[in-house]
């Protein structure tokens, strides 16, 4: 019997020939990512009593959760991180400037997300890097302090679910709709503790950005990691940027899966996750007419160039509805610069959009778009939990950039196929 991706990579990194679900292994990660929470991790690391981190070259820190600092406390956090980075010789530090952006986007753009790597991050959406064939998963602050100290972490070898994707997206339907469909079907705990492998001809046809959207949201169904087998698209994306050696690790043909699910993309329609649970999924057309106050396009799920392009194609020559605030946040400064070059930013501004600096601010209620009581927001983010955007009395709907742009245009939730 062969091994799944998770079994194969964990066995290899633990120096074992074979592992099975339920086994516990200890491995050294290839990279360890942190963001603004590095300040809290530094405190925990120092409390252990060690002088130096295990390997400064394997640590990546990207400031993104509240940038530029909205309060003195945030500013103090950032200052502590800058000092620590200098003290420890951590070279891969992306400060609040035009090299950075949302950590998951920057991590991929800078060539840290690589096939066959084990990557841990003190952010739940670290699972995004599975789009490049890495085993990538989120951990807490104490665990990260432990990784910085000892360079090791334990994992329970997960069971695996395979999701086979065939067909092509109909017009107005995107990777975000697909992952909402899957989470809606499986439930918010449908893949708890499990490894999710996406496969099939549809995946081969998907762009790197679309693959990142899928893997980004596997945590929303409880998964430990997502995985997409690297192909020529992956290799060409990382060709000139890879920061280190890598090795493509693929699941065995005869690997054993707990479940195999199949989806045909051509049968999908635009979907939306209603407040306050991610698996509360409905067709957009069933929600049409719900009035919105704010629309957000951005975040680690859908703030890439193609997402901004889709939004611009809908908003071009039109104005955002009166009374609606459309906030657009390019996922990185690289994305921002490209969007300027391609005149996407100009189209968005002309339509009435507010362009905010790359970062995570509004997605988790930090700043730049916190909601008032009773307000409704439609967002391209990955979570619609109560209070997520800073106010428990607000409502968050999640959808694709096309649905968000169409809704911003009409002032009410709108099926994008009506305006395409």
């Amino acid at each position, binding site marked *: 019997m062969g091994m799944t991706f998770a079994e194969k990579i964990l066995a290899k990194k633990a120096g074992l020939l074979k592992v099975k679900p339920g086994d516990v292994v200890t491995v050294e990660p290839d990279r360890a990512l942190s963001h603004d929470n590095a300040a809290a991790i530094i405190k925990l690391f120092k409390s252990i009593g060690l002088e130096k981190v295990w390997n400064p070259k394997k640590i990546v820190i990207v400031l993104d959760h509240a940038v530029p600092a909205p309060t003195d406390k945030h500013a103090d956090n950032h200052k502590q991180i800058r000092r620590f980075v200098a003290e420890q010789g951590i070279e891969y530090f992306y400060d609040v400037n035009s090299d950075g952006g949302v950590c998951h986007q920057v991590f991929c753009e800078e060539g840290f997300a690589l096939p066959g790597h084990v990557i841990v991050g003190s*952010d739940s959406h670290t699972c995004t890097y599975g789009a490049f064939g890495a085993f990538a998963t989120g951990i*807490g602050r*104490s665990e990260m302090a432990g990784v910085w100290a000892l360079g090791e972490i334990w994992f329970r070898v997960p069971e695996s679910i395979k999701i086979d994707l065939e067909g092509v997206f109909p017009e107005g339907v995107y990777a975000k709709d697909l992952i909402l469909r899957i989470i809606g079907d499986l439930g918010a705990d449908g893949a708890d503790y499990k490894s999710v492998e996406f496969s099939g001809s549809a995946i081969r046809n998907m762009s790197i950005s679309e693959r990142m959207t899928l893997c980004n949201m596997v945590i929303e169904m409880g998964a430990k990691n997502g995985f997409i087998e690297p192909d020529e698209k992956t290799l060409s994306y990382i060709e000139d940027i890879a920061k280190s050696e890598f090795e493509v690790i693929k699941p065995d043909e005869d690997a054993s899966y707990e479940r195999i699910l199949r989806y045909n993309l051509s049968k999908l329609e635009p979907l939306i996750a209603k407040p306050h649970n991610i698996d509360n999924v409905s067709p957009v057309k069933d929600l049409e007419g719900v009035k919105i106050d704010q629309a957000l396009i951005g975040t680690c799920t859908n703030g890439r160039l193609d997402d901004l392009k889709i939004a611009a194609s809908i908003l071009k020559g039109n104005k955002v509805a009166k009374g609606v605030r459309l906030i657009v946040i390019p996922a990185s400064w690289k994305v921002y610069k490209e969007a300027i070059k391609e005149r996407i930013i100009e189209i968005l501004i002309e339509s009435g959009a507010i362009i905010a600096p790359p970062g995570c601010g509004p997605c988790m209620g930090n700043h730049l778009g916190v909601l008032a009581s009773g307000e409704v927001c439609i967002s391209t983010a990955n*979570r619609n939990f109560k209070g997520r955007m*800073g106010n428990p009395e607000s409502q968050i709907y999640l959808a694709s950039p096309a649905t968000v742009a169409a809704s911003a245009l009409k002032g009410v939730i709108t099926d994008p196929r009506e305006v395409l």
Partner: protein
Amino acid sequence: MRVKGRVWKYGDDINTDVIFPGKYTYVVSDPLEMAKHALEDLDPSFAKEVKSGDIIVAGKNFGCGSSREQAATCLKVLGVGAVIAKSFARIFYRNAINQGLPVIQCPEIFDAVEKGEEIEVDFKESKIFTPDGRVFNFPPFPDFVRGILEDGGLIPHIKRRIGKE
């Protein structure tokens, strides 16, 4: 080790944002201050009225969402004796153990107890005792998890391991 306390009962998919809102993530760093916001967006009475040893009983997927460890820290600091749920989200589960907060998977308890009832957990025997005399078993913690819990969390556990304490 045994813990006896009143039950606080919540439903399915209790996420990390309602346990500890994201807006406090970088402005509240003192654990005692964190504790004041525990479950704020779900049950504002909780942080005010919970007593040391009290036990949270919840449905499936407790702690889904963020990797934010404060969701476990705020409960630990308030003295929550254990969280018993039908199932847990994995990052929260690890974070809880790493904070020295016992997390117990026992789906049968949910329908067996009501809010305010006093229940008792025996960690050594892996048993839960309800007021009507019933006893429920849960899977014992693996040895290395027990080691972390007994040391009071991951950081003290690492310190002990590398001889810093």
